[in-house]
């Protein structure tokens, strides 16, 4: 049993650790270790294409996570006031959104957006002279919509352990509905909201499949890595991959800490 576990984890994590290791190689070959250097990190960080793709990825991740957090939190709050069949339908829809393969969502969104743009662009163009097209907007929109379900799941989980009588108690003590939200509900679900934001950010930052379909002329970091691999793998790719991984893991660990039960108790 222990051997089996070692084999599974080895299979999962060995390639990743080797990439991290080889990123410090001094040689030009991406699949062997020749001496130690941080040269490839310097190269990656000085590569204007990498930096531009990173900047695009950060923008998309940040704004889509903001969108997902706002909409997802509001949806989760609305869902708690809902009962019966309607609630069940929404719950299932949220869960399905997380389970549908990215490639299906990517293709479907691409077709939907292209059809929509073809339909409305003549109008918009005649009114403003602009045309809607794939790009930052569609990336942010798609990632925002998709990661919203992650936020809904996290915030709803926290709301379920939240004693609703507190809301009545707050009203009873003279706080308006808005005052109650700001002073009672929000402080207690804030860790889950922040965790949702971090997960949404990480997801968007790492996503290749969906982004690939709707990116238009934009290049996100995962898309850049994919296209440069086709030109041949260098340790620079290993360095970029390692940096992305460390950043993502950090965010995920922070999100996990925020989601620990009873986290909201400690602060006040």
């Amino acid at each position, binding site marked *: 049993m222990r051997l089996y576990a070692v084999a599974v984890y080895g299979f999962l994590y060995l390639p990743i650790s080797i990439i991290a290791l080889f990123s410090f190689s001094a040689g030009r070959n991406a699949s062997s270790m020749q001496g130690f250097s941080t040269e490839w990190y310097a190269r990656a960080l000085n590569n204007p294409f990498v930096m531009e793709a990173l900047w695009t990825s950060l923008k998309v991740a940040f704004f889509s996570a903001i969108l997902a957090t706002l909409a997802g939190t509001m949806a989760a709050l609305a869902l708690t006031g809902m009962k019966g069949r309607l609630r069940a339908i929404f719950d299932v829809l949220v869960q399905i959104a997380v389970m549908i393969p990215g490639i299906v969502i990517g293709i479907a969104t691409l077709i939907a957006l292209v059809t929509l743009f073809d339909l409305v662009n003549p109008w918009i163009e005649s009114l403003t002279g602009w045309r809607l097209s794939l790009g930052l907007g569609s990336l942010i929109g798609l990632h925002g919509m998709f990661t919203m379900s992650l936020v809904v799941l996290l915030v709803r989980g926290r709301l379920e352990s939240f004693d609703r*009588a507190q809301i009545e108690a707050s009203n009873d003590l003279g706080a308006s509905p808005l005052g109650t939200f700001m002073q009672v509900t929000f402080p207690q679900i804030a860790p889950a909201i922040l965790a949702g934001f971090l997960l949404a950010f990480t997801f968007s930052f790492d996503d290749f499949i969906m982004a690939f379909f709707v990116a238009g002329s934009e290049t996100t970091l995962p898309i850049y890595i994919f296209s440069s691999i086709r030109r041949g793998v260098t340790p620079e790719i290993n360095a970029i991959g390692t940096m992305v991984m460390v950043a993502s893991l950090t965010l995920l660990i922070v999100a996990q800490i925020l989601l620990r039960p009873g986290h909201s108790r400690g602060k006040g």
Partner: protein
Amino acid sequence: MLDAYAETGRDMRASAETTENQDAREDHVAEFINVSKRFGAVLAADQLNLGIRRGEFLSFLGPSGCGKTTALRMLAGFEEPSEGCVRINGSDMSAVPSYRRPVNMVFQHYALFPHMSVAQNVSYGLRQRRPRMAKAEIATRVAKALETVRLEDFGGRRVWELSGGQQQRVALARAIINEPTVLLLDEPMAALDAKLRADMQRELLDLQRSLGITFVLVTHDQEEALSMSDRICIMGGGRIAQVGTPQDLYDRPCNRYVADFVGKANILSGEIVERADGCARVVLPSGAEVLVSEEGPDTRRKIEIVVRPEALGIGVAASPGDAALKARITHRTFLGDHTEYLLEAEGIGPVQVNLPRQAERASGRHEVGDEVHILWAAEAGRVLAAEN
């Protein structure tokens, strides 16, 4: 059967309205006026009419689902009446949201804010006031409120570090610091163990007397209601069954439901054969005749009698002056200060008799299986309003 039920309902309403009219001159801090509440097809409150007197301790008593909590929540503003209106200090509360009502509530599971300290919980109501209250003033009042509930040194604690009884006190302090016109208590003792509950009941009573605030308590515990209340409003099926002082309800229950709910009661059927001076001669199914208090019309009719277990006695032979019923003892339970006897009375059925320690010492102890007489002093029982 249904018609008879509807009839009773109308009777109850009529009697409730009479009470209301009699009370009209009194100073009512809150009133229910023809209040009904529907949840879908369920009628949770049915034509409630009740005036709550300023400064009194009133309890809503009834089993779960009787509408008592709904009534309280309508006072607090968490539920809107489907019909009728709730008044506080004489003004209609229909358009007033819960956060603008001069009432505060102690919740069943306290509903303390876990992300705030004890002092922050207690000061919450004051911190909502506009214009803002000075910080020093808030601190003074918090200290005073915590002192009132004997938690002086707990201001900085987290609420989840406290015991159930301490949390209860924080909830109480959080409510009374706002000096509400009416303090609402929703089964506040339900989660406490028996010993703590008794202490808390005493403290609540002291607090009510020293603050002079009107307390409205919801409870399903009849002992709690009897021991604490100035008046009790007994509810059943969304309706007010009877309102009165604990002694009123115990001595003069208006129907079987109230008699059964308040204290232990033997309910026997019989027929009035003759009456005089607020007293009626009733023939029981066994043929025995008893004298009971009665203020009804002078007609020969079938009725029900309520007689409390402690109003009866047990004798080896029938004693002169008392009506006596032949019975056999089926159970005997020693309860310290008194002993509970369950007897099977001839032609009547099970009857409970409670004998105090002294009476038992005097008459000697009776054993299960003994053939005895149940001694029924004149006017020990009381005729109930006919229910069917």
